[in-house]
């Protein structure tokens, strides 16, 4: 059984475009969260799937842009057109600073990013005069450009869809570029890359900042969706959850993080109706994934041969022949 890729993609696009017509408010809201957190997970995938760096501080970049927008709009009465670039700028600046983490590798990188993530969470919690501490910032207004205000969920959905689609296209371009290939080379052999003339630290740092920027974009989408931001959005727990989305969905593809996001958020909605302890369920998912499906749901599908692929080379990572390049 081999599914054709293009008809499938066409159906997915059509389903996404008409979603507000057939989905009720609850499901539409869930779909938006799946897209937003899928984008956040994609930033984890850029580092994990390409360089092999497991970053556990993406929530910090997500939250810093959300907080910046919330503070500028609510406390300083700034318009969306000012708040959004500022939010993105804040995420970029924070990732430029946190980028020092790439000087470490392996388990030290994980530990350093946990610590860096925690620092930001701590600030959001304790700097009460600025962030309202535990209570967070409420009543963020709907995004508005000039006289146009986007109040309904279904119209905001199209903004989310458009931004996520743009990011996915950009991500795909990046990973197929010479720079993207470089990242995979670093994952395979740092020593060889150095020997071939690459300044490894510079490439890792750039990728880290790009991933931070992507997380920041997810944060921007989130704040106008949720209209409320609190330290919970900067938590270590969120960073772990999105990393888990990548592992559950499968690394090495663009679709994986979004599938992981759908599974995790779907499960959370379902499970929390019966059990309070989502954390326990998440821990179990983590263990099951690591033990039985280390390459995620997409890996399982691929192994079953649905897409007729057996090689480890991911779709989208194929490099054309010298003849094709002429």
């Amino acid at each position, binding site marked *: 059984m081999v599914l054709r890729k293009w008809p499938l993609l066409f159906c997915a696009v059509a389903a996404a475009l008409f979603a507000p017509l057939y989905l009720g408010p609850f499901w539409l809201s869930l779909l938006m969260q799946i897209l937003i957190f899928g984008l956040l997970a994609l930033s984890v995938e850029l580092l994990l799937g390409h360089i092999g760096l497991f970053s556990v501080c993406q929530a910090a970049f997500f939250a810093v842009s959300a907080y910046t927008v919330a503070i500028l709009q609510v406390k300083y009465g700034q318009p969306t057109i000012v708040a959004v670039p500022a939010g993105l700028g804040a995420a970029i600046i924070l990732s430029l600073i946190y980028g020092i983490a790439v000087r470490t590798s392996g388990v030290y990188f994980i530990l350093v990013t946990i610590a860096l993530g925690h620092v930001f969470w701590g600030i959001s919690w304790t700097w009460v005069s600025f962030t309202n501490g535990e209570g967070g910032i409420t009543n963020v207004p709907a995004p508005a450009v000039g006289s146009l205000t986007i109040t309904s969920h279904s119209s905001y959905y199209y903004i989310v869809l458009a931004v996520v689609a743009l990011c996915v296209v950009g991500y795909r*371009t*990046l990973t*197929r*570029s*010479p*720079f*993207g*290939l*470089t990242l*995979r*080379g670093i*994952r*395979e*052999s740092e*020593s*060889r*890359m*150095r*020997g*071939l*003339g*690459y*300044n*490894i630290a510079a*490439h890792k740092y750039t990728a880290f900042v790009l991933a931070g920027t992507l997380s920041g974009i997810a944060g921007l989408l989130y704040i106008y969706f949720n209209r409320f931001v609190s330290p919970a959005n900067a938590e270590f727990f969120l960073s772990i959850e999105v990393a888990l989305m990548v592992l559950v969905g499968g690394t090495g593809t663009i679709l994986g993080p979004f599938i992981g996001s759908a599974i995790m958020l779907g499960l959370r909605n379902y499970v929390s109706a019966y059990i309070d302890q989502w954390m326990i369920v998440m821990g179990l998912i983590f263990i099951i994934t690591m033990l039985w499906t280390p390459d995620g749901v997409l890996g399982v599908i691929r192994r079953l041969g649905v897409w007729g692929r057996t*090689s*480890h*080379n991911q779709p989208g990572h*194929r*490099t*054309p*022949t*010298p003849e*094709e*390049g*002429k």
Partner: protein
Amino acid sequence: MDQNAVEVAGLTKAFGGVRAVEKVSMKVPVGQRRALIGPNGAGKTTLFNCITGTFFPTSGKIFLFGKDVTRLAEHRRTAMGIGRTYQITNVFHDLTVLENLILAVQGNSRQKWVMHRPVSAFSGSLKRAGKELDRVGLTDRTHDSVQHLSYGERRQLELALALASRPRVLFLDEPCSGLSPGERQRIAEIIREFPQDITVILIEHDMSIALGLADQVAVLHRGSIILEGTPDEVRANPEVREVYLGKV
């Protein structure tokens, strides 16, 4: 041009208390084929690693084309024209053969920073990659993942990666290790056909290959050079004959 491609002066590298390389001095003129021989643990690979910049020496100086590079980062030395292969095959296992080559080709160019165009848009790189694969005889493996290559083919790829960055000095660390006699001859043939202006420094245990390819030979023993000379002089030296060549 009677410049030295590589000059090493009083080079020492210690790992803790072990002096893997001790006060080595050596000059390799541009275009020379230099063999470096000596028993296992003599410090040959360590000497390579110091010159190519994998790590810094404990003391002593290193010059490339007359420029002091003792404290220069490895990737900058590559940019100056160093290429190398590794004793233990060091290639990109999860990528295709072509992707391996492209990484080597773009290593010294700005192309490695391009993010907005696909690799396939760089026809010049693809052509060069194809040419290097042709040179080592891996053309029919272009699209295969390295995982599916035989050990011998990986050694050929190892060589192709070093050549693809267009080095002026090439350091080959036991390119024939682990290969069958037939495969060794093939690698030796590839090395012999390198352009004459490339300086080659070769570590090789197979004496007939090492001495067959070299203009000059240096014998390393316990971290120090104990003899330098032409292949004939090295062959004739009784001590070397006894210890390294075996009694012929």
